[in-house]
Structure formats: C-alpha cells, structure tokens
C-alpha cells in the first residue's frame, strides 16, 4: 500500500486489523501517542487529508493513497507552526503527552469551534494542566518571563523540554525502537481469590512467535512491596513477581513473551490455568470482621510487616491524648459524621510500562515509566539477587505520574523476561490494565467527632478511619498515617483521638496518589469544623483563625509521631486565610442562574508536610564545562511536575548565570549517585536542595579559583 506521511511516501502494508496509530509509530512517528487507544483521549490525533482524526480508531488500511500529517510534520520544513509557538509561549502543557494531539486538534479548529473551546476539545484529555494554560495558548497569552543572570529563582521560566514537546520529539518511555524486541502480554486472574493449582503452557508455547511463558514457577520466591519508598520498612513484604495465589481480579498470573503483541495475546488466550477458587472479601468492614476469608494468611508483623494478617489488617494506628469522650460530653457544640470516599485512578495519559535488555557487558537495562528509578533498581537487585552495579534503571520523559508510578508494576516482569529470553523485551499496559491492575487512591470510611466551646475553641477532635488497601499493602501504612496526621495537627486542640485501620480486601490494590491520604480525611475534618461554626453562629473563617496552629505551636496528632523532623520553615497560614477571605468577599461572579438554584460558598484548609518523613536522600552533581556552561546531573524524574525547570533555576541562581547555560541530565542510575524519587515534592525539596548545595559549592570553588 502507499501512504504519504509528512510529505514522504511509504510503501509498507499494515496488518488487516491494525489501527493507524500503531502503523504510524512502526514507521517511526513516535509523536503519535497512545492514551486510551479507544478514540476518547485524542493523544493519537493526526491529520488525515488535512482533517483531524483519532488514529487509534482508524483502520490503517483506510489510509491507503491518503496523506497523513503527524505532529512531526506540522511545522513547515522542520520549522515551528504558529500554534506550536503559542503552546510554548503559554506553556500549555505539563507532562506533554497529550500535547501533540492537542496542538494538531487546535490547529484544525475554525473560529466557531475556538469560541467554544470546551466543546471542541472534549476529545482531547489533558490530565495535568486543567486546560487553563491551553486556553491561554489559544488566546495568544504568554506565561513566561525572562530572567537576568542570577535572577532565575522565582521567575516563571519555560520548561527546558518545551521545544521538543511541542514538536512531538521529546522521547517518552515507548518512543524508542530496539532490534530483536520481544513483547510481553500478561494473563490476568478472572477470580478475586484463588490458588493456582496448575498452568498448562503447551498450547501457548505452540503459538508461532511465542518464546517463553513465565509463571510463579519461574519467579523468585522473594516477597516485596510494589510500593517504593526510601525506607523499605514502610511497606509490607506481601507481593511476588508472579504468585501462586491470586488475590484480586486482574492480578497477573503469567507472562507470555513473543515476537509480536498479537502472538503474545494469542499465547495468553491459550494458557490453561487450573484454579482452586477461594472465598473472597471485597468489603473492608467485612474483611476485618471475625470469620472473614484470610487474604494473606501466614504473614507476620515481624517478618512481613503485616500488622495482623489473621484479621486482614495490614496497618493500624491508635492513640489519644487528653480525654476526648469527656471533652465531647461537656462541649457547647459537638458534631459527628461519617464520610466515605471512592476509588479513583490516576489516569496518567502514558500507561505503565517499559523496556528491558541485557547489554553486551551483562548490564540489565530497564527503561520505564517511573517516578522512582533508583528505588526500582534497589528492588530489582534484591529480587533478582544481582549487584546494584549490574542494573541500570532510567526514564526519559514520563507521561504523567500523580503517585501511580511510585510503584513497581512492570519492571520486575520486564527483568524476569529479559533474563529468561536474553532478548530485549517490552511491556506496555493497555488502558484497561491501568484501571484493573495498577493502583488507585485508597477508598476510606472516615468518622469524625468534634467539639467546641462557646467561643468556638476546639475541645475535641476524633478520627476513626477504615482504609481499603485492596489485595496488597503497597502504601497502606504510610497513606493511613498521613491521613490522620496533618489534617488534625493543623488545629490546636487539647483532646485528640485516632483509630485508623488499613484492611486487605480482594480488590485492586490502592497505592500512592497525590495528597497521599489527606484528601480523604481533610474533607471530613473540614466539614466538622464548618458544622461547629454553624452551630455556634461563628464565621467559618473566624473559627479556623481561632484554632489553627500559630508559629511555635506543637503540631500534634495522636499518638505522638515517631518522627521529630517536622518544624516551621515559615508561617503564612494566617495570611492565607486573610487572602482567601478577601478574595471571596469581593463581588461574586454572576453565574446567570435562575432563582431555583441554591448557590453557596465555603472554605476549607489543610496542611501538608513539605517532604515525606524519616529521611530522603538525593545526590546532585554540577560541573563547569570548558565552554563555560554547566552540566547538572540529578536523579529526579520529570513527568510534568516541572522539576527540570526548577533545578535549572536553582543552579543558575546560585551560579549567577542564566538557565540556558545549565544543561540537565536526569533520572538515570547510570549517571551515579542516589535519588529518593519524585514523590511528596521530594524532587523539589530534597533533590532541589542537593542541587542548591552543589551549585553553591561550585560557585565558591570558582570564586576561589578566580582569586588565586
């Protein structure tokens, strides 16, 4: 067949059921992204004879004799299309994974569609920006500032990868072609709880192109957690690469490694698995009740860090100071309420996945969509009993994380398959796999009790939390502990009590998610504060002003934290409340609603520690190059969080130069040092601090050298 792509003619013929998206990528056009692969998200948008289409739902054979424009071909002769420039000026992107499709769509809109941008862009999902900066790009607004030498800090500077992002040239995880590549597909459990009695691989291995079928028999026996933290003791060891027991619908049972995704899929369909189906518990309250099926029987607090496996309790926290019950009994106003929060998926546009290969020197290379390359390497070293220097884990640009990639969901299987086959391997999750088999926000049931005296001073605060961690305990404890911490420690109150339990259930595991437990509980706490204010006739701003911690006040949540590393860096909570109150007291926007609409406004606050507790580490290296520029090497990853911008700003400021003189290398264990990872703002507050220290040392060194 003949197809014209960006002005060049190709003669390749697609498979009969192949979609245009994968055909274009096979021909090297990596700017065409996979978000949903179902025609909804628009990341794969291309122009077909000048008209924008979602290439994932266009049969490739229909492009015969037609002209396709991908993002790589939008600007004439490698130049920049005006809309690409507009997206750069407005910085209309964060992770940038949607940007190619967004720009191609925006470039095709007529004036009427531009007037109703929300409607015109409903087929383009941006998970990061909230569309405001995209609207700015369409309005021709600039969101970037200049900075003189030494003045970068605090300025709105553009993301260094921007020019590559808008041209579709920034390499994301899967935007790489490897020779002799094999593909992995996973067979997933149809049962919420079952023991695997046997797996018959024969029919799968007979599929042409299938190289290997990996099951629990091939997997190391070692238990670990998919959660990645600087300290391994934060999570229970309850997971295997491939287990002989499945604990949720969607858990991986076997991996088929084949020449093509099609052969790997066919291999999965031909696997015969014999299950002994076990009773399941899917409701957290029932799971911790007597008589419930035990999900992680035999695991202990001492060895596996599972609090009480017999009760399906993976982590818990109980404590009280003062006397909440008697304080509530004598309070002028009391409130009690129970709130439940639902399961939520991160929905990063780039799905989980990666590639792995063993190079000529025996080094295991893993390139994945991760927030934590160094911690993945450490985990792989433990699981596969390999020295750290025989493993390299790295990421290029990552298409969104939101906490969902502070986990190891693919790298273990990639390593296992690369070692087993000796070939480069690739595993790219489908959107469905993202939903059924990665992680979610922890659903929680939160009961709050609160009391206040007549002046609105809090007398008692009590939280009773039941968190559903799903089938595995990744992030179960830390999320739970965080959930019952800052949301109440931001208030002074003499009597506080906490009972918190994280329960195993036979459902998809929950994990790290932006806010890390706080959004679930702060809603309950803030609702209680509001209700107390209402009962007492006190303004909701005022009741908060009276109760918030002031500089120097101890920030307390029971039982007293084992960490003593939280202190006031600066204090602005009082000003924050004033600013919000002032903004809300100015004229309210006219929504044009009829009188039968009830319109209200409300206020809530919370506090979040700037860095996760218990010690996090990052190395930065900076060198002065012969050409007078600087080379900055950091471990932290870029997935739209903006740390690449921040690190250059920090270094340029310390070195009294401009950011264009700082070239950044990042997120690759081969570059040396260590990095905790990019979560809980550690990329800025931990790694950024390292960059600051390194740059200041270098600046001192240069000054000394100049003086000598």
């Amino acid at each position, binding site marked *: 067949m003949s197809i014209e792509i960006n002005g060049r003619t190709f003669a390749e013929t697609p498979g009969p059921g192949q979609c245009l998206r994968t055909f274009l990528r096979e021909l090297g056009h990596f700017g065409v992204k996979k978000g949903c692969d179902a025609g909804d998200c628009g990341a794969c948008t291309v122009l077909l004879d000048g008209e924008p289409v979602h290439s994932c739902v*266009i049969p490739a054979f229909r492009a015969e004799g037609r002209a396709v424009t991908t993002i790589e071909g939008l600007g004439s002769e490698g130049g920049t299309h005006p809309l690409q420039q507009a997206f750069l000026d407005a910085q209309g992107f964060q992770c940038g994974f949607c940007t190619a499709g967004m720009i191609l769509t925006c470039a095709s809109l007529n004036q009427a569609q531009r007037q109703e941008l929300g409607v015109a862009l409903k087929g383009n999902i941006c998970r990061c920006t909230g569309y405001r900066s995209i609207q700015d790009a369409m309005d021709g607004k600039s969101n970037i500032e200049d900075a003189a030498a030494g003045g970068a800090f605090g300025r709105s500077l553009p993301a260094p990868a921007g020019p590559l992002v808008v041209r579709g040239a920034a390499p994301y995880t899967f935007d790489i072609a490897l020779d002799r590549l094999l593909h992995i597909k996973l067979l997933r459990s149809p049962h919420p709880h079952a023991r695997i009695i046997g797996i018959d691989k024969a029919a799968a291995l007979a599929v042409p192109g299938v190289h290997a079928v990996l099951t629990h028999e091939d997997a190391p026996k070692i238990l670990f957690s998919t959660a990645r933290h600087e300290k391994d003791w934060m999570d229970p060891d309850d997971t295997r690469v491939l287990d002989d027991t499945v604990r949720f619908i969607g858990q991986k049972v076997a991996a088929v490694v084949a020449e093509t995704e099609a052969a790997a899929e066919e291999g999965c369909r031909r696997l015969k698995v014999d299950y002994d189906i076990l009773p399941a518990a899917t409701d957290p309250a029932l799971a911790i009740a007597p008589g419930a099926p035990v999900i992680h029987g035999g695991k202990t607090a001492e060895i596996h860090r599972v609090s009480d496996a017999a009760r399906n309790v993976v982590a818990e926290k109980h404590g009280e100071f003062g006397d909440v019950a008697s304080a509530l009994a004598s309070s002028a106003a009391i409130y009690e309420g129970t709130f439940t929060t639902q399961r939520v998926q991160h929905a990063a546009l780039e799905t989980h996945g990666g590639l792995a290969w063993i190079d000529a020197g025996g080094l295991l290379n893993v390139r994945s969509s991760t927030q934590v390359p160094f911690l993945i390497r450490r985990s792989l070293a433990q699981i596969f009993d390999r020295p750290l220097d025989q493993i390299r884990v790295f990421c290029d640009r990552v298409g969104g994380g939101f906490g969902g990639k502070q986990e190891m969901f693919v790298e273990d299987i990639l390593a296992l398959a690369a070692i087993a086959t000796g070939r480069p391997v690739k595993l790219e999750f489908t959107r469905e796999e993202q939903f059924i088999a990665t992680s979610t926000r922890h659903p929680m049931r939160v009961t709050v009790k609160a009391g206040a005296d007549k002046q609105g001073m809090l007398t008692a605060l009590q939280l009773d939390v039941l968190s559903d961690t799903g089938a595995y305990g990744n992030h179960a404890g830390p999320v739970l502990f965080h959930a019952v911490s800052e949301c109440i420690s931001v208030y002074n109150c003499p009597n506080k009590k906490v009972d918190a339990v994280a329960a195993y259930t036979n459902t998809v595991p929950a994990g790290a998610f932006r806010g890390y437990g706080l959004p679930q509980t702060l809603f309950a706490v803030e609702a209680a504060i509001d209700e107390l204010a209402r009962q007492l006739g006190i303004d909701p701003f005022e009741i908060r002003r009276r109760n918030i911690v002031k500089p120097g006040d101890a920030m307390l949540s029971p039982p007293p934290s084992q960490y003593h590393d939280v202190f006031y860096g600066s204090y602005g909570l009082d000003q924050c409340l004033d600013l919000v109150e002032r903004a809300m007291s100015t004229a309210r926007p006219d929504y044009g609603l009829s009188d039968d609409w009830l319109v209200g406004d409300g206020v809530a606050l919370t506090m979040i520690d700037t860095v996760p507790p218990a010690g996090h580490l990052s190395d930065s290296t900076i060198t002065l190059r012969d050409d007078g520029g600087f080379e900055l090497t950091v471990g932290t990853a870029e997935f739209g969080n903006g740390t690449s911008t921040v690190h250059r700003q920090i270094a340029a400021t310390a070195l009294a130069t401009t950011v264009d003189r700082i070239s950044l290398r990042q997120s690759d264990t081969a570059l040396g040092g260590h990095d905790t990872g990019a979560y809980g703002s550690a990329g800025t507050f931990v790694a950024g601090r390292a960059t600051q220290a390194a740059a200041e040392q270098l600046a001192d060194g240069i000054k000394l050298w100049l003086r000598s």
Partner: protein
Amino acid sequence: MDLNTIREIARPHTRAQLPVWTAGDAWLAGGTWLFSEPQVHLNRLIDLTDLKWPALIVSDNHLRIAATCTVAQLDALACAPDWIAAPLIGQCCRAFLASFKIWKTATVGGNICMSLPAGPMISLASALDGVCTIWRADGSEYQIPVADFVVGNRRNLLASGDLLRQIDIPLTALRRRSVFRQISLTPVGRSAALLIGTLDGDGALSLTVTASTVRPIKLSFADLPGREALRSAILQQIPEAVYHADVHGRPMWRRHMTLRLAEEIRSELAIDP
C-alpha cells in the same frame, strides 16, 4: 486499537459480492466503536466502504441516509428552507459524547446499530419517523421504523448477517415544528435524557423519549396535551423498568428529567411561533 485476531478484510463492491456470513465476521462501517474495544471473537471485517452508497439522497418524499453516511456528512447537509425541523440534525450531532473528530468517521448506521440508549442518531431518526431498510443475509430485505428497530440497551432486531442499508426520513417529518431537549450529568457529557417533540400541521404532538430509556419511546397525542395530561401519559406509558441505569444517571433522576424536559417541550410548542 489493534485488532490482532483479524486475519482478513473483505471489500465487496456490490451486494452480490457480500461474502457468506460466518461466525467471526463483523461489518465495518466507520470502525470508531469496533476499533475502540478488544474484539477477540472476530477474525474478518467486511468493509462497507467500497459499496459506495451515496451518503445522502433527497427525493420527492424522503431524505435517504445511507447507513455509511458519516455524522459529519449529515451535519453538513444543506437543508431546504421549509425543513423547519432541520435544526434537530445539528442538535443531535452535538449530542454525541464523542469528539467532532470522531464524527468524521463514525456513521449514522453504526450509531443506530450500536443501539446504545444515548445514541443520538437513534433519537433523531426516531423523532423524524425514520424507517430502516434491512438487507437480510438471505438476499431479501425489509423495512422497520427506527423506533421499533432498537429494542433495548445494545439490542436491536438485526439477525446474524443482516445489514442496515439505509434510513428513510419522510420530508413531511422534516417540515414539522420541533423542540429539542437534552441533559447530561456533566457538561457535554453522555446524554442521560434526550427528548424531541414535533408538531405537525394538524396540531398532533409526537414526543420521542431517548437516552433516559433503554430504547426509544414514542408518545403520540392528537392535540397538544395539557401539563397534567402529558405527565400522566409519560408515567403510564413508560414503565419504570424501561429507564436506563448506569453511571451516567440513575433511573429516578432520568425519569424526573424526562418529565421536566417533556413539559419544557410542551410549553415551548404551546406558544405560536
């Protein structure tokens, strides 16, 4: 997404060339749904493109919409000035959950054959008394109103190997006064209720309820009913079990919206233009 089990694309040019229907076959029109989900039970797609059915034909009595007419082609149709119901076309096209980019490929016939409660081409064709022509696998054909063709959530009267050829809309229907109402739980979201009322020259009201119900429901009134008469007709003629239940709206809310939107339509049509 790639449909890796597909081994062959059949591309017939005439009805005589349509291959014998076998298990594992699927008709391929726009493909926007077919390629949006795994289809591991399929191994051959029969592409309807090369049949080259004219997308839209206006005759003395009918607007003939080929099943393969894209939503964008229908939306771009230049309508006669006396087709005062023509705004319904644009309104229904904009009631798609899908992006305008999908309209360029998605077909009218595909939307009707998907038979989702929120299928806006079902709403449009039902309200305008559209009639399906079905090519049977045995070579015969028959006609059936669109409103009767769709019988439930993702259920219709197509038998294995049957093919929807076209939808004929009487021009008389396009000359009726019409009022459109639609609501979703989210802005520009999937329709949770989509109602269309039309009034003919004799003052008879035809009210078509879609999206809130699992299949299109048509209510006819010889004259424009009063508020209460309309309400009780809806309550009597649409059993509670017919209201659709999914994440896009609960049945009680859908019924409430059906009653409310119907009354809005009635009041608007009660005013002389």
